[in-house]
């Protein structure tokens, strides 16, 4: 590896201002000096509107932990779009994402991805991972929320006889249920894994308004470390149940032992034991045209801005060292990376914005809360 790097540095004498990777990319698209890429090796249809995409990442990728997600860049009509997808492959194996068609980007990934295609990548990240020490686990998933949990189940169940995993997975119908067959096979094969397929089309949603449903599905749920991944409402309900149980436990404990607090007591259920992974199809924040809170992340400044003041002016007035040039939208000297939120192009009125996009601050105003990487 070190010799390779030395060789690359020597070669760059002949390729400057390009990097040797820029030349090598003529022959293999995975090479890039500044952009991690992967080549799709296999695409497997899971349900009518979901697919698993296996890829071989280039140098710079780091192996994922079960439950983590990665940002994936795809080109739509020449423009690169980034979305985050959970990795469904077990830890230690080649990465794969499982994508459900819920929007423009995921639709293209599910329908149009072929082996040999290039994906743009960012290394895996996320804290929704297995506990460091073995514990009995309860997994609550709904819809495509199964994806990160699938990675955990595949990592843990076949390889750890001491594992104790209960999974309650909600899907609308059996046909919509991703990984249904594989999960049932694993449950048949390994006594340490129990799965409940809950079809909301037949039975409605799992009722988290009281402990009754869980008491029936998994009587010892209070003693398990719980993981939940699914739509917003599902997670909110689960969170509320765990909070309520924690309050009950604290009250019981308070009357039994006065002021002292024993988190390891018999009623150990509390929100800390519920680890949540939220997923949304797009960042919800920042629609509308009325300005919003502008956060200059690296400068650690926050300013409320209206919807007609260019972000360049907002930043300068807040004392941020903003790059600037023509101030009329032609020279691209003021480009600043957007971290979150949407901006409005003051020339056309168009509202746009994706995390990582470089925006012209001299002609862009806040359309809702905006985070800039400066």
């Amino acid at each position, binding site marked *: 590896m070190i010799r390779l790097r030395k060789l690359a540095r020597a070669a760059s*004498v*002949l390729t*400057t*201002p390009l990097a040797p990777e*820029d*030349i090598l990319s*003529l022959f293999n698209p995975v090479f890039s*000096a*500044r*952009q991690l890429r992967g080549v799709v090796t296999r695409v497997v249809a899971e349900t009518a509107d979901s697919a698993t995409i296996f890829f071989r990442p280039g140098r710079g990728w780091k192996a994922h932990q079960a439950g983590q*997600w990665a940002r994936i860049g795809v080109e739509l*009509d*020449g*423009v*690169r*779009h980034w*979305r*985050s997808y*959970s990795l469904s492959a077990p830890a230690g194996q080649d990465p794969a994402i499982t*994508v459900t068609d819920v929007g423009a980007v*995921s639709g293209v990934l599910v329908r149009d991805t072929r082996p040999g295609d290039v994906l743009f990548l960012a290394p895996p990240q*996320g804290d*929704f991972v297995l506990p460091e020490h073995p514990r009995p686990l309860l997994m609550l998933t709904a819809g*495509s929320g199964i994806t*990160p949990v699938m990675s955990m189940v595949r990592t843990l169940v076949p390889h750890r006889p001491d594992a104790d995993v209960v999974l309650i997975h909600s899907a609308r119908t059996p046909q919509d249920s991703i990984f249904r067959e594989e999960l049932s096979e694993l449950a048949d094969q390994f006594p340490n894994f129990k799965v409940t397929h809950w079809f909301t089309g037949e039975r409605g949603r799992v009722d988290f308004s009281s402990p009754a449903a869980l008491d029936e599905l998994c009587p010892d749920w209070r003693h398990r470390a719980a993981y939940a*991944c699914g739509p917003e409402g599902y997670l909110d309900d689960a969170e509320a149940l765990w909070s309520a149980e924690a309050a009950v436990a604290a009250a019981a404990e308070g009357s039994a032992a006065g002021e002292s607090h024993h988190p390891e007591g018999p009623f150990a259920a509390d929100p800390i034991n519920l680890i949540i992974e*939220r*997923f*949304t199809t797009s*960042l919800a924040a920042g629609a509308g045209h009325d300005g919003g*809170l502008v*956060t200059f992340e690296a400068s650690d400044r*926050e*300013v*409320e*801005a*209206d919807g*007609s*003041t260019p972000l360049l*002016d*907002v930043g300068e*007035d*807040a004392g941020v060292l903003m790059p600037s*040039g*023509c*101030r*009329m939208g*032609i*020279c*691209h*000297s003021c*480009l600043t990376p957007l971290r979150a939120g949407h901006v409005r192009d*003051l020339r*056309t009125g168009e509202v746009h914005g*994706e995390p*990582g996009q*470089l925006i012209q601050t*001299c*002609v862009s105003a806040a359309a809702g*809360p905006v985070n800039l990487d400066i």
Partner: protein
Amino acid sequence: MAIVINHEAESTEDAVVPAKTRRGALATSGSPLVRPPAAAHLSDEQVAELGRELDAIKDDILAKRGASDAAYIRRMIKIQRALEISGRATLLVSRNKGAWVAGTTLLSLAKILENMEIGHNVLHGQWDWMRDPDIHSTTWEWDFVTPARAWQHTHNDLHHRWTNVVGRDNDVGYNLLRMDPSQEWKPFNLGNPLYNAILAPVFEWGIAIYDLELQDFKDGNKSKEALVKDLKALGVKALKQFTKDYAATPAVAMLTGSGKQALYGTLTANAVRNVWAHAVIFCGHFPDGTDTFTEEMVEGETRGDWYVRQMIGSANISGSKFMHLMTGNLSHQIEHHLFPDIPSNRYAEVAPKVQEICKRYGLPYTTGPIWKQVGSTWAKVFKLALPPKKA
């Protein structure tokens, strides 16, 4: 599809900035203190309407821009890199005369494409919309001694904003030549043709020195720290460029006994690119028919007036598709100045619409074959070497 949302970042409303109008934005109606003579016959309303028509042309292109444009620039970059490596590889055996000619030609073509159709246009942000960090105005560096960032400042910002405004746009003569009759004549200007002839083959150095903004430093408008920083950046860049073309390539070629020939090859390729770039760039604003402007003409300038200034201050070059490509589409200088950041492959389809607008509004649209435009700029270089005739 998991996105972890941090719910802790709640807003704190401590500073509220009052609403105000955008600095630098041009008004859509009104008029400058003085309208340039070539546009003096137009009313405020006509100029505003012209502005709207040109905005519509741009919007049309932005709506069409997509996968085919992305494929175009990627194809161009591939072709350029293939030319570059094959040219350089051929020079490694350039003891053979045929190999020398082939290698030098390939490398010259590669350097011209790299500098003009790719470098100039990527650095303008014409491809930023793709959001590809490998083809982006903030990351691109080119095969030219002046560092990309320095050039972007003097070119994209200063030259394109102040196009042909004498006293504001230093591209009018590059602080070296007298290129406009309103520039005061000094005996130094007698050397105009000589300076220009010397400048052409070393044009990249002319630009590198120009980008240092030495006059601004002398006038106290540029700090010493800024100048030292720019000098360092230029030094590092120049060293890398020299090492590649004049040390590393000949050194490898020495293995076949072609060291000296390879050195002549890279020197020639750089000179060819410089002479060509110099010729094309001088055709942009200096041929007969292009106007220059006074500061009163930009005071209070509206969006439409800004467009007018770009059109009547620039000149096109007519020719074949290959010629347009070799000029980096700067042969569509008028369209480029109207819309500096639309993809260069789109200028050709915009050109007839712009020409039609100029005709309808009675504005000059200067264009001609390259020999005529080059001849016209050289005529100006000679003519303005001499002092103005006393009336």
